[in-house]
């Protein structure tokens, strides 16, 4: 019993709002569980691509491209209730107009750390 609670606690991440996917799962009825899994798989496939694009944009100082990619990451994260990534993406979006790249880089580094944790949580849930 204790082991079960411990495992459960490990699965709960402060960066994920479980309510978002729970609502979707319930809404979709019987297929809900499978669809949530598919969405998480899709997220784990797509996010590394977006992250690598963002990395390139920062390196090349390409504001327009950075804006689009960060915006995309924010949207897809919000769809799955990955609030940690969604809010960091928004923070980056807010800094972009100022052109303070040191700040953008610091936020992005933090975002990478959070993604690592989210990845572990999602992988465990699959």
């Amino acid at each position, binding site marked *: 019993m204790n082991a079960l609670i411990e495992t459960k606690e490990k699965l709960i991440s402060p960066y994920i709002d479980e309510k978002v996917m729970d*609502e*979707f799962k319930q809404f979709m009825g019987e297929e809900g569980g499978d669809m949530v899994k598919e969405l998480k798989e899709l997220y784990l496939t797509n996010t590394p691509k977006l992250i690598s694009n963002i990395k390139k944009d920062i390196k090349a100082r390409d504001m327009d491209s950075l804006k689009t990619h960060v915006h995309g990451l924010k949207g897809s994260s919000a769809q799955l209730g990955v609030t940690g990534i969604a809010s960091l993406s928004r923070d980056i979006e807010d800094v972009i107009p100022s052109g303070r790249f040191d700040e953008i880089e610091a936020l992005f580094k933090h975002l990478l750390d959070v993604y690592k944790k989210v990845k572990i949580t999602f992988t465990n849930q699959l």
Partner: protein
Amino acid sequence: MDEKKDQILIVEDSDITLYKVKAVLIRLGYDVTAYNNPITALDWLLSTPNLPDLILLDVVMPGMDGFEFIRRVRGKKETEKVPIILLTSHVDTRDKIEGLEAGADDYLGKSASLSELEFRVKALLARKHSTESSITQISARSIAIFSLRGGVGVSSIAVNLSIAISQLWSIETCLWDMAMGVSQCALMMNLKPISTISTLTDWTEKTVDESVLRNMLLKHKSGVWLMPGAVGVEESELISSHTMDLVWPAVQTLAPYLIIDAGNHFSDPTLTILERADIILLVLAPELASVNASYQALKVFNDLGFPADKVLPVVNRVISQNTLDVTKIASGLKKQIFVEIPYDSKAMVKAINQGTPHILTSPKSEVSQAISSMAYRLSSGEMETKKAEEPSPQLENARKLLHS
């Protein structure tokens, strides 16, 4: 009415958002066309012979943003009127203004709940269908449902219509069961009456105020307050037209909308209420005896001096065989049919047996859609033009949605 499924186009570059929104809309019973590329989507839209009923559109997309997409769609005669909801994660007012200027009809935050998505889609589709309809919108605060023959679904329509209006505008509605003797509505909603207006016979000369009626009301989880009908013949006989005169002013203050199950025969109390109601939905089955009874009812209404546009015939297809078609019925009644409710007796009986109204058990069925659309046509005139008195956030929301 709504035989064809509504078709919705989603244009969204994020695969994840696309997957989720598409799944939800399919689940809600819509036909969905989805593109993750705005340019391909525009090509399709400008060349398809089957225009979508609604477009859900992302704002920030590579290649072409949502605003430009809207301008192109609005710039073509064929597509200028297709309703568009912008999907946005921005809370930036500049975005909203630009979207409105470009011609979007509504906004939806990407983090919005699924029920908000459902509500906005339904409201915009209902609005689209209502402007397509030849019958103008109606403002009615009190809607009586009546028939001169039993078994045509008066109570069922009353219950489901009350819920539909409540859901559409996120408001409370009051359903008054004044059909004598059986308390059918309470049964359909699985509620148990405590006291009924038959106890008001002692009140003769006193004023019946709202609080007296509130004690009788039964709360249904859908947002409908039920004022239950008299149980049994004895109780029914206690109710006179005088009781109705006493009750009428107070009953209108209970909720923004009053739906009355007026039963299936003429009596003094019934006529008192039918005279006061803003609208009468005259329910009939698509068979000769029912059409004949309705014709008689229309004659009585005419003799009583009711305006012709106060009475709206509703054909409820409670039978499936040897039925008359709507054109024949309309020419028999010499009156246009307001709404036709499709045949689905199995589901209706199941709903009654379960004590959960059909519109809640099967919100996507054709019957529910017909009732929702009827609810919109009966209430949108009022809700859209009404000036703010005590607007709830939901009501403001619905207004904003319909005014944009």
